[in-house]
């Protein structure tokens, strides 16, 4: 069967696609909880005030609450966050460091969080990955190492007061690396 095409989320989704607990991948009492925050910028360097960020990641043990994980589903970890950007283009999710997840050929990947970005003017979502700084396994991560040196840094969050910062530049000289999935 032929796939249904993607369309933009448009400017008027916030009353439909946001939840009071959307940014809470974990609650504030979770051990190791931190905020992952950033700003979405357009190609002119202006903040994007009508984007939606969604995150998906493994639990701290590297597991998913999902029946297709051949190691078995582990219930109780939501793994998902969603947050619209505010008028200054800012978003944030409260989460925890994901565990390592096997990739191709069973090689363990470095901890990573998949992000989807939706916005007015994006006819399809764009996908990126957040890696964490000072993570020794980053240098062995097959995905991170597949990205050219010059732009790899756009995939690594930077330390911030209450967690990490990960800005998303949709276009331009410092454009974030996006992935086709």
């Amino acid at each position, binding site marked *: 069967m032929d796939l249904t095409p993607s369309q*933009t989320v448009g400017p*008027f989704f916030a009353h439909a696609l946001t939840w009071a607990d959307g940014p809470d991948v974990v609650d504030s009492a979770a051990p190791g909880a931190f905020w992952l925050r950033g700003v979405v910028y357009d190609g*002119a360097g202006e903040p994007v005030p009508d984007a939606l960020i969604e995150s*998906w990641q493994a639990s701290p043990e590297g597991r998913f609450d999902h029946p*297709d994980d051949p190691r078995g589903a582990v219930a109780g970890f939501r793994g998902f966050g969603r947050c619209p950007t505010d008028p200054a283009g800012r978003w944030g999710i409260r989460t925890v460091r994901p565990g390592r997840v096997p990739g191709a050929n069973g090689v363990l990947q470095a901890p990573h969080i998949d992000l989807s970005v939706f916005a007015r003017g994006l006819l399809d979502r*764009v996908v990126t990955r957040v890696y964490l700084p000072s993570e020794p396994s980053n240098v062995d991560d097959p995905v991170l190492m597949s990205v050219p040196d010059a732009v790899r840094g756009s995939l690594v969050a930077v330390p911030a007061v209450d967690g990490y910062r990960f800005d998303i530049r949709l276009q331009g000289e410092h*454009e974030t690396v996006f*992935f*086709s999935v």
Partner: protein
Amino acid sequence: MDSGLPGYRRDPGGTHPPLLTPEYGSTVLRAPHREPVVLPHSLTEITGPALGEGRVLPADHDLTRQHEGEPLGERIIVHGRVLDSDGRAVPDTLVELWQANSAGRYAHDRDQHPAPLDPNFTGVGRCLTDSSGRYRFVTLKPGAYPWRNHENAWRAQHLHFSLFGRAFVQRLVTQMYFPGDPLFYQDPIYNAVPSAARHRMVSAFDLSETVPEWALAYGFDIVLRGRDQTPMEA
């Protein structure tokens, strides 16, 4: 990886709109310029959030019953199945719907179109597909509305749909249109999709699902990518 894991096929060309579509002005500063890097599908990509319990209330599928009074407009039933490209049902998956009211205005702070808001219509619906992948909403036919993309620009009438499917790689946000809309020809969002695929976004009038003396019905099946025959890319 072990064999037998459900990898997903990549979208064939000719399916989705190019991110840079200059006729839709907002793409010009937002579409990335660099080619995306191909991400092999690992467990992170072939899993996805289980969103159901607690996210959907029993009345969420009926957008005409969310307030004290009935909203004004043409009542319609929108129904269909969520399938993968092998025709398999996608059961128990969250379907989110949002739309303008019958006057063409969204109940959103930033919609400044001078058409009336309807205190009885929020224009937001949710449901979970059943075991056969079916969903059904009761709502109103949305009005067309102007936007500032080009001279005298109007959006074709549409409903917004958000689908999660079973896996991160199946996530889809799309729009459903109505058959025979005279605004198609000048709507660059609709026309951004390759011409051979546009009809997949257009619902079909469905007499069999109408409710006599109550509501017309439109059918709209949504097809998400299917699984690969081979194990995850190694």
